[in-house]
């Protein structure tokens, strides 16, 4: 292990559940800051980067992925015990992810449709966020997470303050960037009004309505927004699909999806 003279480097572990590893890759993508990060943090567990294993306790545990298989249930509880601070990263860990769509479907039928030997697959009937199982201290949203927010979180840990991560509509980022509203001017469907910011309005910047991958913002008025979309002439299936994305299992999107599911039959 590198000895840098700094004695109290926080011990950091990155753990993975059901996920695509994209959030872990975002950590590796911080190329310009990686040296700074590893000189200040002792990254002892990081499956995407190294097969080396190190037991806890850890100062910070970043959790990627949703709780999706039977063995995850104990593993997340054990991680919580080993973690001083537990941070969930990405849509899967914070909201259940795209795989949480099975929570509205017949799990066995899905399994049978996808796998030749469904009996070999051990999975839970639901995919759930870590917060349904253990206490979570902080969340980084997005699919994948935003490197700037990750860096801010690490900085905040070192400096000893709360991360300055805003919880506001994506619309605000559009306005600051001077992007003409895709809904009002372009007639597109967009999750921006109810989705929390952090991506710097990535999709609207490329003329595509927000997919909602950062999940519902604090106080999101999801019901009014789904009513608004329906009133603008969109069929319930389309509005359902809009909410039932990467973060559909997070409230209040979950309620809207359940209700729309009933109307669309």
């Amino acid at each position, binding site marked *: 292990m590198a000895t840098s003279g700094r004695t109290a480097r926080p011990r950091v572990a990155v753990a993975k559940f059901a996920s695509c590893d994209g959030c872990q890759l975002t950590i590796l993508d911080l190329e310009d*800051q990686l040296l*700074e*990060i590893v000189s*200040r943090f002792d990254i002892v567990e990081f499956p995407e980067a190294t097969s080396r294993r190190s037991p806890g306790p850890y100062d910070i545990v970043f959790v990627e992925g949703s709780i999706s298989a039977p063995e995850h249930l104990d593993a997340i509880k054990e991680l919580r015990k080993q973690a001083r601070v537990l941070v969930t990263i990405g849509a899967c860990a914070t909201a259940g992810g795209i795989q949480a769509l099975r929570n509205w479907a017949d799990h066995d039928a899905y399994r049978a449709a996808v796998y030749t030997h469904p009996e070999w697959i051990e999975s839970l009937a639901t995919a759930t966020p870590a917060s349904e199982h253990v206490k979570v201290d902080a969340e980084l949203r997005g699919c994948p997470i935003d490197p700037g927010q990750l*860096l*801010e979180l*690490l*900085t905040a840990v*070192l*400096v*000893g*303050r*709360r991360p*300055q991560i*805003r*919880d*506001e*509509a994506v*619309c*605000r980022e559009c*306005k*600051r960037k001077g992007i003409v*509203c895709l*809904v*009002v001017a372009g007639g597109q469907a967009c999750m*921006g*009004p*109810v989705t929390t910011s952090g991506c710097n309005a990535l999709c609207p910047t490329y003329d595509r309505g927000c997919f909602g991958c950062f999940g519902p*913002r*604090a*106080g*999101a*008025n999801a019901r*009014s*927004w789904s*009513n*608004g979309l329906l009133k603008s002439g969109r069929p319930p299936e389309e509005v359902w699909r809009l909410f039932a994305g990467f973060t559909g299992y997070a409230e209040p999107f979950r309620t809207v999806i359940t209700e729309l599911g009933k109307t669309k039959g």
Partner: protein
Amino acid sequence: MAKLPTRRPSHAEAGAAVDRVESVRTQMGEPLPMAGIGDRLKLQLDNPRWAQVADRCVECGNCTMSCPTCFCTSVIEASDMDGKSSITERQWDTCFDVAFAKVAGGDFRARPRDRYRQWLTHKFSTWWDQFGSSGCVGCGRCITWCPVQIDVREELAAIAPPIAPVEHPVAVEPVAASPGSYSIARLASARPETEDTTTLSLTDLDPAFLEGRPGQFVMIALPAFPAVPISISRFRANAIDLTIRAVGQTSTALVNLHPGAKVGLRGPLGTFWPIQEAYGRHAVVVAGGVGLSPLHGLVDALVANHDRFESVSLFYGSRTPEDQLFRDDLAAWTASKAIDVVVTVDRAGPEWKGRVGVVTNLFDMISWDCTKVTAFVVGPERMMQASVQGLISKGVPTDRIHVSMERHMECGIGLCGHCQMAGRFVCKDGPVFRLNDLGDMFNREGI
């Protein structure tokens, strides 16, 4: 402009311009009856329609972000990983933000209806109080860009039907001395007051701070932490004291500083206690908890000039004996005989020999003619409310009661909009207010 190639418009062009304006005017349809709109809205703060429109509003903020007169901003401190240097970035923000009016103790506009009401009443009502004009220029952008088709004209017509306008004097007060840039001060000493509260003595100051007045505050900054407003608790020969309760990130970092540390200060900011108004009268100071801090400098001044007042007294309530601030000063004030100091606690162990009960119980001791009382009150909102009611019921005139209000502050100089309370910027029109100047906005929910 002079460099642009310009020419006078032709007769036909000038005529076309007039036609175009006229055609827009006709397209706009029935004009909104604007006469007295400010007063009409003030009468409708409890209209149930606020909740109905808030049910539709998705709080995207598009209306405020596209309104040409909206000025609200927030600040983030972007620092390097060691927190040694940081950049203060100001960005556009909106009162629709869920944390816009939040302070450590709670949220002044917690419900969507409070936030929608803030937007509409600010544009069409309280803007008159602040700037002497309407906050709406009539561009229609907020209507165009609302994704759920909320039309401010419809809302205004439904919420505030026409009434006869009331004449208002436009009171745009000059801003108190308020430097916009930080100067560096050095921490001379840190003195713990209670478990969670510490008094910092700051020295090597810009002389402007020493000329501040009791009741004023400073914005204090550390690299990498958001700046926070803190009252000046005491003026010394070459130093000012700030008494800070560790309730969150910045306040905790401040109370943990060691002597010699450097901090950034802006100020002194805001209004101050009008001491002269109590000359020849009974000066009554009512403090709850850390509320004694912004009153400390006032008490010092009252004690030093006690012969100018009919009498001087301090009623101080805290949760427990351990939560009392400035215990040495309380003893010294008592010993000076220049002031009657009466303290009480909400609860205490058997070793406490003093009074137990809320601070308003102490008002029963007042035997003077209350019409001759000038009162200065600071504490948690609920305590202020009860104290003010108690004083009024004893007969203290509302224009002789002065209070200091707490609001979320980021700029301290009337720019960011966070501290607004109806038609007032608490940072520059306050924090010290004469009670009757606040009217029924004092402690009103959701303002």
